[in-house]
């Protein structure tokens, strides 16, 4: 009995490090010093995000997200933005261009509506996807800088109700930083965020799909 006890008390101790090594370590440990940003399901981002590291998005995102590391889109996420990253993993709803330097995965709960440029592509059964696919290392390198899908609208601060704007206590209450005249986002920029898929038609056109389709820059926001 006693021998059993010693044995069994040893066994787990001897095993733990081995089994831990077998399992992939949690992403935070694996990436070590790498920066990681997480937006939860109740968070919202409208604009551009550039991250030197990994990004995990769970809420509502509009605009443009670019990461040097991996981009993860959670189940509840609603993303209307162009995404760029190394590994891009989509489990929520995304509409916008996606560039994955390594691999794009659309999980079975995910839906993606937009053109993609990827080195590798995995789509799980049950996932929904519509768009143009350009694949291979060359396609990724040729990818243009991702452009914001929805141009942030410069809303004049005057029109905002006081409570809605979490402004830092400014010394002058009625001095909005004059919105730049050059950047009133035209409605066209918004409509053009994704050409409707139906437009492609069901034409069995064999020769059409070759070659990387370079999407023309649409509605370039002037600055």
């Amino acid at each position, binding site marked *: 009995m006693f021998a059993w006890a010693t044995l069994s008390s040893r066994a787990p101790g001897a095993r733990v490090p081995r089994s831990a090594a077998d399992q992939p370590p949690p992403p935070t440990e694996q990436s070590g010093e790498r920066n990681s940003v997480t937006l939860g399901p109740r968070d919202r981002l409208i604009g551009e995000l550039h991250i030197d590291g990994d990004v995990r998005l769970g809420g509502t995102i509009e605009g443009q997200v670019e990461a040097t590391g991996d981009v993860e889109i959670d189940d509840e996420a609603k993303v209307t933005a162009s995404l760029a990253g190394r590994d891009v993993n989509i489990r929520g709803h995304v509409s916008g261009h996606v560039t994955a330097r390594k691999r794009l995965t659309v999980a079975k709960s995910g839906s993606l509506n937009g053109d993609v440029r990827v080195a590798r592509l995995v789509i799980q059964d049950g996932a929904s996807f519509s768009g143009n696919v*350009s*694949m291979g290392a060359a396609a990724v390198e040729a990818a243009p800088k991702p452009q914001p899908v929805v141009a942030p609208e410069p809303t004049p601060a005057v029109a905002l109700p006081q409570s809605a704007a979490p402004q830092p206590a400014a010394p002058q209450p009625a001095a909005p930083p004059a919105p730049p005249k050059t950047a009133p986002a035209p409605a066209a920029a918004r409509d053009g965020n994704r050409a409707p898929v139906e437009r492609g038609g*069901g034409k069995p056109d*064999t020769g059409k799909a070759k070659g990387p389709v370079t999407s023309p820059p649409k509605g370039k926001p002037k600055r």
Partner: protein
Amino acid sequence: MDVQEAVSQSTPVGAAEEAKRDGLRKFTMGPNDSLEGKLTYEGHVTVDGRAEGEFRVTGNIDVAPGAKVKALLEASNVTIRGEVEGALNARDKLILGKNAKLSGDIHVRRLQIEDGASLNGHVRMGDFEQQGSGG
């Protein structure tokens, strides 16, 4: 001609495997067969070797590893493990195996792409209004 031979060689194989699974006939091409032209077939088709043209099938199309296909493909389920160039319609599901290469526009109801597969073209997903496989 090449085509005739391919068909006549393949038919016995297909006949042998007839009434498989769901009772649909099966048309099987071997790695040395080739087919050029239009094929409309009530049943399943397995393509190996070389094929060019148009394949409209009520059942499934399987493209074997190593096969080279340059054709319009239309079927219920399409499974690709070889190389395919051309438009593709899958009334139900398209599966791209890990060594598959597909270039062309596709319209499918469901889509599964395994890691390592290559795809270039436009993807459209949605139900087909006309002509369900069950009638």
